[in-house]
């Protein structure tokens, strides 16, 4: 039983990380109807930024966070203006390929600037390890939980109560109608990319503090897509729930099935298997909107 609970708790931690990446993805999708493959790379950049500001620059945590967010804002604005805006109105594939290209460039930049090496700043961020009985709660889960909850609360408020948030939702619904009532679509796009960048970078900073930063950190983005699909692509709450479900499932399945399989490593592909199953049986996820198509 203890083994099971430990697996669940570790899975929760993992799920929170997935959820963090997934949230950024859902925001872009909700606002500009673009599937952002590069979300995992925002996390990667965030991790390296956290390292740069905390270790070589030696800044305090609050200053590093503010600086990292500032960089994220600039990055989001640049990406939106240079890469995304020229593609408005192009087919879906063009946008997806653009974000893939973006991911490639970001990975290249990370390699160029930070050498693609393993960087760690463990112990710089406050880490809390709690013990409940015999089960230890890993610090990732606490940090992830806190950041996710705060982010989600802020975003929910944004989408429900602020003018720009409502404009963002409306833009996702129908670009032409939005433009005809005088909402500037370009502003909406810019804001949504900035938010996604900021969320990704914050997530990356926290993750980097826990597990270190390296290029494969970006691959967490790929796995997070399983979360996004399971939760439904346009539901922020769904991303959180699905993140937890998938993280726990993955960990429990790996814990019990790996000893049976030669070589193990089930955790690496578990999200993808879930992804295929979800896609076949419930393509719009648990909380997603079913898209109705007309000819």
């Amino acid at each position: 039983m203890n083994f099971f609970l430990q697996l669940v708790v570790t899975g929760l931690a993992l799920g929170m990380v997935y959820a963090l990446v997934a949230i950024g993805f859902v925001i872009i999708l909700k606002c500009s109807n673009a599937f952002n493959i590069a979300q995992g790379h925002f996390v990667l950049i965030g991790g390296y930024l956290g390292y740069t500001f905390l270790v070589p620059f030696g800044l305090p945590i609050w200053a590093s966070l503010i600086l990292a967010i500032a960089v994220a804002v600039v990055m989001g604005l640049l990406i939106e203006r240079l890469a995304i805006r020229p593609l408005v109105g192009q087919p879906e594939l063009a946008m997806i390929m653009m974000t893939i290209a973006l991911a490639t460039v970001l990975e290249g930049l990370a390699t160029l600037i930070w050498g693609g090496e393993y960087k760690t700043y463990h112990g710089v961020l406050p880490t809390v390890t709690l013990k409940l009985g015999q089960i230890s709660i890993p610090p990732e889960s606490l940090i992830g939980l806190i950041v996710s909850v705060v982010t989600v609360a802020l975003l929910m408020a944004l989408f429900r109560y602020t003018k720009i948030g409502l404009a963002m939702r409306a833009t996702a619904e129908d670009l032409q109608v939005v433009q005809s009532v005088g909402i500037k679509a370009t502003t909406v796009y810019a804001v949504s990319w900035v938010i996604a960048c900021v969320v990704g970078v914050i997530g990356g900073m926290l993750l980097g503090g826990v597990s270190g930063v390296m290029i494969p950190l970006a691959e967490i983005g790929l796995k997070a897509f399983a979360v996004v699909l399971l939760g439904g692509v346009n539901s922020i709450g769904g991303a959180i729930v699905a993140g937890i479900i998938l993280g726990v499932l993955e960990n429990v399945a790996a814990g019990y099935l790996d000893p049976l399989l030669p070589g193990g490593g089930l955790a690496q592909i578990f999200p993808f298997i879930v992804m295929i199953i979800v896609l076949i049986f419930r393509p719009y996820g648990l909380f997603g909107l079913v898209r109705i198509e007309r000819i």
Partner: protein
Amino acid sequence: MPGTFQESYAQDMAIFRTPLQWGMLGLFLIVLFTCPLFCSDRILTIMTMIGIAIISVHGLNILTGYCGQISIGHVGFMAVGAYISAILTAKLGWPFWVALPCSGLAAGMAGLIFGLPSLKIKGFYLIMATIAAHFIIIWVVLHLRSLTGGADGLTVPKPKIGSLVFMSKASYFYLVMVIACLATFLAVNIGRSRVGRAFVAIRDNDLAAEVMGVNLWSYKLQAFFIGCVYAGVAGSLLVHYYGFASVDQFPFMDSVWYLGMLIVGGMGSTTGAILGAVALKLLDELVTVVGPVLSAAVAAQAAASLALITRGLILMLFLIFEPRGLAHRWGMIKAYYRLWPFSHEESE
């Protein structure tokens, strides 16, 4: 009146309509197949790699360019073909000319399995399914150690047909080029056939296609099957060239890069698939030449990042400035030449 006039249906349907076009084709084939006489081994290697890429991109073009089913798992299907061919020749001792079609069929079967979700989903959802396919395939390859050698890889014998062994670079060049030409010929004709037209209808609007009587279930799976057969053959040729099969030859980013070739070349055009593969493979070569120089001059990691950044930037620039690819530009150049000194066709 200048121009070529079609007076019969056969003439209208012909791929090569004028003696000039036939002459160009003949000249191209003669130059291509005499390359080993005057090219160095290095250039032959590059051309062989381009040939393999062309075969693979043709498959992706049929699947993504014609049928609109975007796949970022193409390299995974190449790996299926590669490993089937490797296992058949190395472990079971089957002859290469049997193993090669088998590798295509096996990859096609894998394509059918992972193409199943395409019946319910499209666009981004399908992309996710194909990404999942890639990782699942690679995982299976790594874990079937007794068959595939797992992470250690598998030594593959050089291909042999009868008493002819493809040992030298030149002989392998001929093998790949013959298959690439056949693949191109088939791809052109698939695009013009009933199947190809159905693919295009599905790409443009699948609901409308279904209403018109195109069987979505059958044709989408056919697209996956054909596209993956091409991938399997290309994968088989790749590992037989190296004489070694390992999962490192099939990285995930290569799938993205094949899609990039398709975009740079132009979706839904056989010419585009060829142009894209040639252009981007040459770009890769350029990067491998420039990279070390840059590494020495700037920083050690410059070479690795240069490859990534140029790839990404090229893709971005094409998406923004030339979304219909090199094939479209090539068509415009041809039209300009045909219409000169007039700048417009009357009907347009």
